[in-house]
């Protein structure tokens, strides 16, 4: 399978299954488009007619081009067949029962009252609660016990707002550091915070112990303060921005992400990106809102077109700043063409419910943070392990080939089948697909690949 598109002045051809990417001239673009459905003679005669008034394109050019396409096919870099299906699920089979990442719901409560919150202001449709040290410690032990030979273990402190239970966070990290050497493990911690409680103590701790920090900021003050308000209805922008700036300035190059949400209120999210840049942040992420159908924050069909246009404009801005020596990172455009994941990973799905789970303040296990509160997907708990094997099985079976829509999608080896939670909320089954999410993902990949091409060709 191939995917062809034109963007940023480039004619781009992706050979989906080999991962090869080609930048081609207009004749090659046309040859490739017709190659599988027409004979050589038909293609040559078709293109001779199309380019008959072009002095710069001769018949021998067209013939030469045809031969080059043919050679690439023979070399396994064009029209490569998908022979990976029998490998789907192999990685999960091989690592069956191995857990390598936990999302610790350290606080099911929040000091902000954002109406678009997928976690219903941190409560996840349940009671407010914080995780005790004992539950957290048992969760870390559960992870170590179930991680097999896996050395790198990921733990995200999540909420609600995890800094509302900061003492427990610190104690859990201390415990993990004490035991990781003994078990030959390496904990990588992440903190996701709204910033309200950031102080010097939090900054020192985060810079020392957190391999990544996700900071929630929606961009323009009026956009941010529209949703991200306290319980008195006051916007949080002025309160948190100076704190984020202090944290980022002192981070010394360690990873962080300024992470915003765009909604129906700001499909023109590039304006929010620009505000983030002006504030001094250059590791950025903006995500479409995840909400129930019909929610006022939901992106409409016309918003989708605006968003896609914004993605292109964002790519152009990144390129311009890259050339000017003022680069910034947009998380969704990060793509490692030479050092990216192997094919097993690419076809295995996201890992939720198998190698990755969320832990509630009470120690219950769910496939991921977005399923917390969905009783039928409660997998078990950190004391007895996974007991709802039927539910786990649904997740274990998720891979690129388990969704019929993915089979014909050129982006499948870049997304691995998408988000089970988005699929569930959109279609009622984890094996469905969230069409709007797919549409935006594909647009992002086209832009990300174009950016990499521009950078490689520049060198």
């Amino acid at each position, binding site marked *: 399978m191939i995917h062809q598109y034109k963007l940023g002045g480039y004619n781009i051809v992706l050979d989906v299954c080999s*991962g090869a990417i080609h930048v081609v001239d207009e004749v090659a673009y046309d040859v490739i488009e017709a190659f599988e459905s027409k004979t050589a003679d038909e293609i040559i005669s078709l293109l001779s007619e199309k380019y008959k008034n072009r002095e710069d394109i001769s018949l021998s050019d067209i013939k030469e081009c045809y031969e080059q396409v043919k050679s690439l096919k023979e070399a396994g870099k064009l029209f490569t067949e998908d022979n990976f299906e029998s490998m789907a699920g192999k990685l999960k089979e091989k690592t069956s029962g191995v857990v390598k990442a936990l999302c610790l719901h350290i606080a099911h409560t929040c000091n902000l009252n954002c109406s678009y919150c997928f976690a219903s202001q941190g409560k996840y449709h349940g009671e407010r609660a914080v995780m005790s040290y004992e539950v957290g410690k048992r969760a870390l032990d559960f992870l170590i016990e179930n991680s097999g030979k896996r050395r790198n273990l990921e733990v995200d402190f999540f909420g609600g707002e995890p800094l509302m239970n900061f003492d427990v966070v610190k104690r859990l990290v201390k415990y993990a550091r004490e035991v990781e050497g003994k078990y030959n493990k390496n904990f990588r911690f992440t903190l996701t915070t709204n910033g309200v409680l950031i102080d010097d103590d939090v900054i020192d701790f985060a810079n020392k112990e957190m391999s990544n920090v996700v900071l929630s900021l929606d961009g323009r003050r009026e956009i941010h303060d529209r949703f991200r308000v306290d319980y008195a209805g006051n916007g949080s922008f002025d309160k948190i921005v100076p704190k984020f700036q202090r944290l980022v300035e002192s981070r010394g190059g360690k990873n962080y992400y300024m992470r915003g949400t765009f909604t129906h209120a700001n499909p023109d999210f590039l304006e929010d990106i620009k505000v983030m840049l002006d504030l001094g942040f250059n590791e950025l992420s903006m995500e479409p809102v995840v909400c129930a159908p019909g929610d006022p924050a939901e992106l409409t069909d016309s918003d989708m077109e605006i968003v896609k246009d914004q993605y292109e404009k964002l790519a152009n801005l990144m390129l311009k700043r890259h050339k000017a020596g003022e680069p910034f990172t947009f998380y969704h455009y990060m793509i490692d063409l030479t050092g990216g994941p192997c094919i097993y990973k690419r076809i295995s799905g996201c890992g939720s419910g198998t190698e990755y789970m969320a832990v509630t303040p009470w120690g219950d296990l769910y496939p991921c943070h977005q399923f917390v509160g969905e009783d039928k997907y409660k997998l078990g708990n950190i004391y007895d392990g996974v007991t709802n094997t039927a539910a786990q099985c649904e997740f274990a079976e998720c891979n690129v080939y388990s969704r019929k829509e993915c089979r014909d999608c050129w982006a499948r080896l870049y997304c691995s089948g998408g988000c089970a939670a988005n699929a569930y909320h959109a279609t009622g089954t984890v094996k469905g697909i969230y069409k709007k999410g797919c549409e935006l993902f594909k647009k992002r990949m086209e832009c990300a690949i174009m950016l990499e091409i521009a950078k*490689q060709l520049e060198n």
Partner: protein
Amino acid sequence: MEHIKTIETRNLCDSAKNGGCGECQTSCQSACKTSCGIANQQCESNKESK
């Protein structure tokens, strides 16, 4: 005349031969985990050998 320029990428078919160690990051694509697909991840075994 060069009609086609091939960009350097990892060959996915070849990666079937020595892949699958499973040390790579989990790939959360949902809310607040900032939607990392597969594409923006690094191969841990490649990273170590670099």
